[in-house]
């Protein structure tokens, strides 16, 4: 799996992401600078990692969404290429128009760093094939603005089309506002675009991949992607 990690100024989880991609796919990603005009040829997966692009002093992700590299990411996505945005990456994808909705401040109005439980809603996508539908995984969140909101029609469409891949849930998989860490609409933690090739999610699966540090539930996402490309090859 040839992956590319886009680095905007102020992004700070690019090393975590690169290490996880290397660890699980066996191949180090290419780090792509925000000012570059193009993605490396033959890229299988583009990742927009977490952080605070441009300090997030404007709306989160708003400036990064207009960086030169984003034109290349848009046309790559339009050709069906897989794009994963995590945390700030999710915010950037929403601001870039590649995903619907917007990420508002957490309902508690505080930054929250906490392990959360996610219910995997579908396993028939390249991003979630490493999990079973209904499986509950434990991964960390670390964000101040992850409260997913969209207009009613959009939410209805996302639900009807099965584009919600992850929801904040209790450890047993039931939905309960107590476990919805940021107050997101319908406890949405991760959504797909209408073509199914762009995923944005707030939690950090890349931080839960090593048994010696704790849970490894994040592995499934990257292992699934690696399998997807192995099979395609």
């Amino acid at each position, binding site marked *: 799996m040839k992956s590319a990690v886009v680095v905007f100024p102020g992004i*700070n*989880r690019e*090393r*975590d992401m690169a290490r996880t991609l290397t660890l699980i796919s066996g191949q180090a990603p290419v780090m792509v600078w925000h000012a570059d005009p193009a993605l490396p040829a033959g890229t299988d997966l583009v990742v927009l990692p977490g952080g605070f692009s441009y*300090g997030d002093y404007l709306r989160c992700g708003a400036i990064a969404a207009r960086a030169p590299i984003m034109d290349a990411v848009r046309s790559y996505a339009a050709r069906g290429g897989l794009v994963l945005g995590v945390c700030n990456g999710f915010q950037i994808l929403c601001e870039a128009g590649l995903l619907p909705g917007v990420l508002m401040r957490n309902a508690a109005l505080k*930054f929250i*760093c906490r392990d959360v439980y996610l219910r995997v809603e579908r396993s028939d996508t390249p991003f979630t094939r490493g999990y079973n539908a209904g499986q509950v995984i434990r991964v960390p969140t670390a964000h101040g603005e992850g409260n997913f909101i969209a207009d009613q029609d959009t939410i209805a469409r996302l639900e009807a089309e099965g584009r919600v891949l992850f929801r904040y849930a209790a450890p047993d998989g039931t939905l309960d506002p107590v476990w919805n860490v940021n107050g997101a609409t319908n406890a949405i933690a991760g959504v797909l675009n209408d073509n199914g090739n762009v995923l944005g999610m707030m939690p950090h699966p890349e931080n839960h991949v090593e048994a*010696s*540090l704790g849970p490894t539930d994040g592995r499934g996402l990257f292992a699934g992607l690696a399998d997807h490309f192995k099979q395609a090859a």
Partner: protein
Amino acid sequence: MARTTTKRPARVRNTRPARKPKARKTNRAKISPSLVAAHGLSAEEYQRILALIGREPSITELGIFSAMWNEHCSYKSSKIHLRTLPTKAPWVIQGPGENAGVIDIGDGLAVVFKMESHNHPSYIEPYQGAATGVGGILRDVFTMGARPIACLNALSFGAPMHPQTRHLVAGVVAGIGGYGNSFGVPTVGGCVRFHTRYDGNCLVNAMAVGLAQSDRIFYAAASGVGMPIVYLGSKTGRDGIHGATMASAEFGDATEEKRPTVQVGDPFAEKLLLEACLEIMAKDCVIAIQDMGAAGLTCSAVEMGAKGGLGVTLDLDAVPCRERSMSPYEMMLSESQERMLMVLKPEKKGEAEAIFKKWGLDFAVVGKTTPTKRFIVRHRGKIVADLPIKELGDEAPVYDRPHLEAPPKPVLLTAAAVAPPVATADALLRLIGCPDLCSRRWVWEQYDHVILGNTVQRPGGDAAVVRVGDDGPKALALTTDVTPRYCEADPFEGGKQAVAEAWRNLTAVGARPLALTDNLNFGNPERPDIMGQLVGAIHGIADACEALDFPVVSGNVSLYNETNGRAILPTPTIGGVGLIDDFTKSATLAFKRENEAILLIGETAGWLGQSLYLREICEREEGAPPPVDLAAERKNGDLVRALIAEGIASAVHDVSDGGLLPAIAEMAIASGIGAELDRPPIAASAFWFGEDQGRYVLTVEPGVAETVMARAHAAGVPARQLGLTSGDALTLEGERPILVARLRERFEGWLPAYMAEQPA
């Protein structure tokens, strides 16, 4: 011990007008006694200036002297005492005197760390004050060529019921998180306390830890004549002017008016500065580097020259400014954040400039090194300052202020002197949910503590554990500690205890303690009783460092922490760093399984003087604090560390605030597993809640308990079995069982409930 100049702003003298000295304008202003006083300089110090330069200083020069000679930058009250601290060990690469301390951890790697206060700004503007405190200490660490891998902090707030406290807690915590989270460093540990003596002065001590190659450390001392001095980072504005000078006076009622002296942090700029600095260091462009913190351009330029035995000439017309028509006085004293000064290798200038431009940062040659040992500042073709650089910098005035030792407090040891007002179970439930002992989850969940993917032990344990590099096997153990109520009752014992507790917390996770950074927070040193506290605490710290082979490698002093004549509790915060050879073998405090033997290591006399039990349950703040037997401390700790390394101890927790039963309760809460505890050998309140030092609780398989105790006794270490892990409750003989779930509810409940209440 010469300490590095620090970057803090500021505080404010109640006798001084709140406004800046009115003199920024022209360089020809007449220097009046009131202008001298407004710069925080004494009449004697002004006479010394006159003698030194043989003429009346210009206003810019007066500003430069005030910036360099204030308490904050010069350590003039503490220096002679700080020199007594042990600072050497075979693994110490750099002790106090640079931007941060450096220790060798093997494999060609070095750990760079330091702690610093940002107390006064945080009280005036909690979010920005705390945020820029984190920014300042991170800069200290990456200035030396290290990539920051962890932050910690130590916070002291006023009584929960004080009307300011909630606002300060909310702002400070958000500010620490706001800066560290955005910069991209995990904030992995710290301590938080509440006491009415911090009502008018909260304490925000921030610690940063970085990793560097041991042969690639960068220092402040310039070398070579005619080398370009380069300004990097953000532009200079009028923020923070005189911050450091004002950090050398007390607060009065006009404190609120000081808000404009607090700088605003920009973690985004700092992140760019980090990446750019590490990149040009890797390209071997740098001769010397100093960050601009307290007293900004003045302090950084003087330090580089003074340490290198060189002169410095600055051309202010080249300084990137964010505001128009800034005067030389303002440019020299601005404390705008996220700025650096470097001496570059001339042949690498183009390469360095390209890197900074790539990161979108300002880059300007603003001066050069000279052979003259003069500090010369030019502005629009004129010389606005021409001063001897050594006397400004490392030869600033030093005072031996009068100090009085307080009489020792009476020992309050026997249970008979402290009749238990409530049953043991009730006392435990109250203690575990009291402001000083309850869970800090509300705080540390606002800090990203998992970023960088190397956090082995998250906040909530005895010490944080962070893996070194991406693969280990080594890890660092990190902690911040101090027990101010002990220091107030007996500064010497309190100073010892702060070091011993840090050493103990590192040991409790299995680490070998290597070195520490200290952050000495006290009141007005011009008062002999306060100076006595400072001197006593330093002596105690020195004794403990010596006995535990645990040297001081960096530090910071914050004095004048008082408001309207009432000082804070003496608070010498210790930040400890230890090394674990194999990160997969660190110990945690949670009970691991039922039916394990619970052992107590260390002597228990039942010392209730200055205990939390006495304060929270008996409502008495009295007595002498528990003494620390440093020889026993070392023996006990060495045994515990060996038991962890050999995989014999399955759970380990140090016994500190609240004593033995709260320690056991915390081990139960962390696991959900309860315990059956035997009848205590002495009065229950003294046994369960006394705060005798040098103790650990650990669990072992029941079959090896006897062997472990025999081994302890052979090593001269007191050990006894307390009971067994069992069930879902703490069961004490002769008391009603206490459900672990109920303990957890109390433990987790107080802080979120308190913060959710409407401000008074």
